[in-house]
């Protein structure tokens, strides 16, 4: 069943133009220049420091690097990061 679900997902997004973040349970990352990152649909915080933020997702991790990080808001499945962002990386789990 799981494999079926995984196969149907991309098909739905491709042919029915449904938002991919919902269907595929992928994180949606919105960035405003260098200063803000808004991440939805993540699975939890792994590490956080002034220079690094690591979030778990369904398939691995998202790593954000930069400096003077502040988590402006933190709600379940939502994070707003403020600071100077230099890198956004996807790390395989």
């Amino acid at each position: 069943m799981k494999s079926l679900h995984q196969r149907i997902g991309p098909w739905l997004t491709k042919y029915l133009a449904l938002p991919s973040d919902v269907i595929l349970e992928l994180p949606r990352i919105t960035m405003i220049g260098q200063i803000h990152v808004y991440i939805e649909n993540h699975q939890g915080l792994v590490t956080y420091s002034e220079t690094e933020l690591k979030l778990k997702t369904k398939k691995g991790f998202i790593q954000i690097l930069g400096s003077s990080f502040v988590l402006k808001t933190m709600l379940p499945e939502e994070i707003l990061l403020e600071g100077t962002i230099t890198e956004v990386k996807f790390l395989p789990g």
Partner: protein
Amino acid sequence: MKKIQGSYITGNVTILVKGNMPELFFQKCVKRGIPVWEIKKQGKMECSGKIRLHDIKDIKRIRRETNYKITFIEKSGTPFLFKRLTRRKEIVLGLLISIILIIFLSNIIWEVKITNVSKDIEKKIVKQLNNYGVHPGAWSLSLEPTSVIQQKLVKDIPELLWVGVDKKGTTYFLEGVEKSIVKEKEVHGPRNLVATKKGVIKNMYVSKGLSKVKVNDYVEPGDILVSGKIDSIGDSDKKKKEGKSKFVASEGEVIAETWYKTKVTVPLEANFELLTGEKEKKYSLKFGDFKIPIWGFGKSEFKNIHKELNENPIHFFKWTLPIHFVETTLSEKTYNKVKRTKEEAIKIGIKQAKSELLLRLQSDAKIISEKILQETTENGKVKLILYITVEEDITKAEPINQGD
């Protein structure tokens, strides 16, 4: 975001989490549905963040499950503001005292202005007002309403025809109209004195004019008692000429005995209420229909109560607050029943009849004697028909029409 907005009103706290990987503590909070914001890593083992005030309980529960150390660094929001304010008791107390003082001063009489009357009467009014408790510096809440003061003043100062009492803020304005006592217009021209009532003359004193009646004469109303027309005696022997008689304004007093028939009924049994003089005062504040007692609680011990209410609005500067200060005076009263014997009833009846009669007559009238003409007892009432003899002045001036 919505959860965070408005957190200033409900209050929020900044906490500092110490331990290994402190950010994971916040992760746990978020998983439980507690919003966290402004998370900052202070060091390797320290992390600060803001939470809502009412989430503290849950935070403490989470802390128990883990081994992080939590310290509260900063508090902000209105609940803390209030707390700080109440902690500074001097300010709150000062504020309260000043408001009370303003209310107090707004309800004090500062001035009593009396206009339109002469100095003499003004003094009298001030004296009377002092008796009623209306004077500068008096507490105006327990005073009677202006209309009552008005009535009392007119009653107590006979020289006043009318007085307007108006309360404006902390000032009483009184406007008086004096009775200009006009002396009865004397008839200066020639006049006679005539009788106003029938009676037997008892005493006469004539200073001017010619008396036409003698003591013990019976007169009817309209009879001339003292004539202003004097015929000179010298001329009367000769042929009378009308132009020769002299006319004067006659003056004098004729006291006559007059009679009155009056009827009185006196019940043999009477009920009346009597105040015992025991009094109780209760004070309360009234908001609309709602009353809060502030002094004098509990039920009165009096069995029968005569209640008097005195309501006064409370002022704040020039505004009238929708709060009334109510003074309730409870006076004890007793219901009395009196049974009279017939003799007592008759006595009371005579007394009553006399005082009623004296009210009707002039002040110089004197009651000489009374006689019971008829006496009947019916339905528990004594009916009396009295015959009262009075001595009084019966004269009235009447100008002589000379027919010019």
